[in-house]
């Protein structure tokens, strides 16, 4: 009997220290900031090293995340009298520095980004991404930032224009001196941005830019977590093929996204023997009546596929509906901007039965991370659910932060190496890059597999009720994710 007790005690003694070592120890002391205090002075006084102040920042922010009576330090140079901070023990400080490998100055680490925040860009997408970046940033900094420093996100407006993208990217890299970029909504912007990133050798993690050529040029700096146009076109075509159409009308935009997306889709239709025709429109086109009239009078399409992004797509969808040629009259795969369902219903009140391809796991398969992010996002934006581009934005920033931490430095080559080997779990699920410098793209795959997340989930969902929120749409394709049957026009 005594033996067993002794044994249990030994086991406990072994286990307890390991447990406490894994969690933050918090054996230091609380301290209320007095006049004339600054962090390096406190670090010198308590830890015997003026350079140890990032540890105070880090642990105080850790405490703040659990208990908001602690101050939240966003800039180590600024503390205020009366703030409660946490002074770690020298052991804790040492553990912190051992993890963060190195401490660089007192500044912040800058990560750049750009999203469309004004027309002709897709504003509904840009504001979603901005909110997602802000949530990710807050979380990253609450968790101690990267390399022991706070992260500063420099977010510029791309307006969806490639020329803006080039100048914004140059500004981020040369003027703001960002160490990495997590960005972009429009493909045209991504195509312009990747060139600047490549010229300056700064890593970029692309969210929501679908053009195959973005990763297809094989630049070491370029990574993408969004699906490629060809991936999405594959799902569009596979879905549309299940309807056995004889003729499909593709409504697309004259942009770096719309033109290749329509080409890839057409090729895939051709391979299946489905006839299709593409109608091009400039982004920002307002009046679609003449072309809708033409579609109506000509050969009647069995399916209309809308590849026009943002507000331009909304304009087409609503005007088609008003002309008696909308989603309630013809099967219409609307643009995925519809995933911001409030904007969609405001602009396309007659959009019932619209289908669209949704990127990312269906709601039923959300991970805890997805749910946690979704909760914050819905609270912050008031939207029904995080759209795919919001999740991609969130993941792209978090992944960049994780890569810098794993690289242990802000050296571009180190970050790129870390990204090539990254195993990241985020809102979109588990993300990694199959092909890179150590595992070249096989010959039977297209060049765009380089630094590309190869397994994004793409589903086709449908608005089945007027005013339905994007959070609870019916998944109609593919069968693995299906939650209900599609409602057809006139049904």
């Amino acid at each position, binding site marked *: 009997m005594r033996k067993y007790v002794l044994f249990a005690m030994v086991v406990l003694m072994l286990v307890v220290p390991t447990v406490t070592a894994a969690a933050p120890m918090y054996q230091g002391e609380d301290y209320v900031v007095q006049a004339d205090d600054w962090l390096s002075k406190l670090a010198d006084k308590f830890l015997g090293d003026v350079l140890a102040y990032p540890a105070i920042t880090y642990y105080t922010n850790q405490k703040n995340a659990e208990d908001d009576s602690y101050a939240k330090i966003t800039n180590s140079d600024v503390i205020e009298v009366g703030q409660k901070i946490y002074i770690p023990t020298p052991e804790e400080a040492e553990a912190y520095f051992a993890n963060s490998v190195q401490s660089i100055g007192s500044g912040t680490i800058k990560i750049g980004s750009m999203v469309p925040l004004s027309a002709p860009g897709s*504003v509904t997408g840009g504001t979603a991404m901005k909110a997602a970046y802000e949530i990710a940033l807050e979380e990253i900094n609450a968790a101690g930032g990267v390399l022991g420093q706070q992260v500063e996100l420099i977010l510029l407006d791309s307006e969806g224009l490639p020329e803006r993208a080039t100048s914004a990217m140059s500004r981020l890299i040369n003027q703001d001196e960002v160490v990495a970029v997590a960005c972009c909504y429009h493909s045209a912007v991504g195509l312009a941005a990747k060139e600047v990133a490549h010229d300056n050798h700064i890593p970029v993690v692309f969210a929501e830019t679908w053009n195959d050529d973005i990763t297809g040029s094989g630049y070491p700096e370029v990574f993408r977590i969004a699906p490629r146009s060809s991936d999405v076109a594959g799902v569009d075509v596979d879905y549309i093929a299940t309807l056995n159409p004889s003729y499909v009308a593709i409504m697309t935009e004259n942009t770096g996204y719309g033109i290749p997306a329509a080409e890839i889709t057409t090729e895939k239709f051709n391979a299946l023997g489905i006839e299709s025709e593409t109608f091009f429109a400039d982004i920002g086109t307002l009046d679609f009546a003449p072309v809708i*009239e033409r579609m109506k009078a000509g050969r009647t399409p069995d399916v209309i596929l809308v590849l026009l992004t943002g507000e331009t797509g909304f304009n087409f969808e609503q*005007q088609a509906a*008003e002309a*008696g040629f909308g989603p309630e009259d013809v099967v219409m795969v609307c643009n995925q901007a519809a995933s911001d369902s409030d904007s969609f219903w405001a602009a396309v009140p007659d959009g019932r039965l619209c289908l669209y391809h949704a990127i990312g796991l269906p709601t039923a398969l959300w991970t805890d991370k997805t749910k946690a992010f979704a909760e914050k996002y819905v609270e912050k934006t008031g939207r029904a659910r995080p759209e795919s581009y919001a999740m991609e934005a969130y993941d792209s920033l978090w992944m960049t932060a994780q890569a810098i931490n794993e690289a242990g430095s802000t050296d571009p080559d180190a970050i790129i190496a870390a990204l090539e080997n990254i195993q990241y779990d985020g809102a979109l699920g588990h993300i990694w890059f199959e092909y890179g410098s150590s595992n070249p793209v096989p010959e039977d795959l297209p060049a765009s597999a380089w630094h590309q997340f190869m397994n994004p989930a793409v589903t086709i969902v449908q608005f089945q009720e007027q005013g339905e929120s994007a959070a609870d749409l019916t998944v109609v394709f593919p069968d693995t994710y299906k939650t209900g049957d599609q409602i057809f026009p006139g049904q």
Partner: protein
Amino acid sequence: MHASPLLQTFNTGPALLILLWVIFWAVVGGVVTPRVYRRKDLDASSATLYGAVAGAGTGPILPVYLWVKTPELNWRWIVVPSALTLAMLIWAFAVYDPNNLCVNNGGYVISQISNGLLVGVLYGLIALGLTLIFSILGIVSFAHGQFYMIGGYVAFFVVDDVFGLNLNPLLGLLAAGLVTMAIGIVFERLLLRPMHLGQIERPSEYAILVTFGLAFFLTYTVQATIGTNPRKLTPYFPIDTVTIGPVSMPPSRVIGAAIGLVVLAILYWFLNYTWRGKALRAVSQDKQAAAVVGINPLTMNTLAFGMGAMLAGIAGAALVQVFTWAPNVGDVASARSFVVIVLGGMGSLIGAMVGGLVIGVVEALGVGCFPDVSRALAYQQVFGLVIFAIVLLLKPTGLFGREL
């Protein structure tokens, strides 16, 4: 039979022959006629144009008649040949693309024309405001599209329930008109009046810069305050789609055009039957003479700018239930208005209205008939510009412009 877009076959050869015939006789008529007139010591100032059109429309027939008889060249010798020229071009088009909907489906052509007329009324209304400003103040306002944009937003916020207002659409239109007019009046008094008082050294450059500045100011103020999320109203009045024969017109467009016509009627009454309206017309015809009979040109300037802004504002309010609204919608409207007023003749009110309708119909028919279905919509604005270029080439003062 409907045309299969995938089986497009074009008879390039025969169509090209017709075109070459037209071009050949146009050149012959254009080159020979003025020489014949000059040799006979007659007025040859418009002989090139008349000869060219005569050749294009009738081949050798009319030019030979002109050379033999050399009648005095008046409108009679241009109207019929122009119509015949148009007929020749349509014939060439029909031969080129016999499966085109515009060739084999009359109802379709009428639908496209009605589409064009419906939006054309409002293009005309916007351009009317711009031409009114030009005829009275002698400046081109680069901020005109922005008044259109603001009018749409004002109507949206008054009629929609985002601010809980949810008022009658008529109040929305009224508010749009009043707000844009107020902005116009304030701007004119503060920034344009000094120009007319001779306080500005280089007035024409000043006018361009200050209205450009206003355009940016208004666009970005709206963007910063209201934001750029797309806005749209449902049709103002719950009417059904209007169907007349092969033509079906969506409610929102019918309502928009009706608003445009009512505003036009009111404007017509104002300009012709009220003292202020007559005064405005007087100033547009002759500033000094108007001043002599007791019309204060400064007051008229303010009134004209305010009214011009108001017309654009109301057009915006009429279209916010047709198109999705964003702070940049004014840009395209501005550009199109310039085309319309130059096409119609700078300063001509009737010209602006007709120009608007022409541009509306040409854009609709262009998109509807252009043989390459894929590109048709992308060339939307080009069709209007082609007509614009042709009119300027043949009649540089525009359709209803006064000779300068």
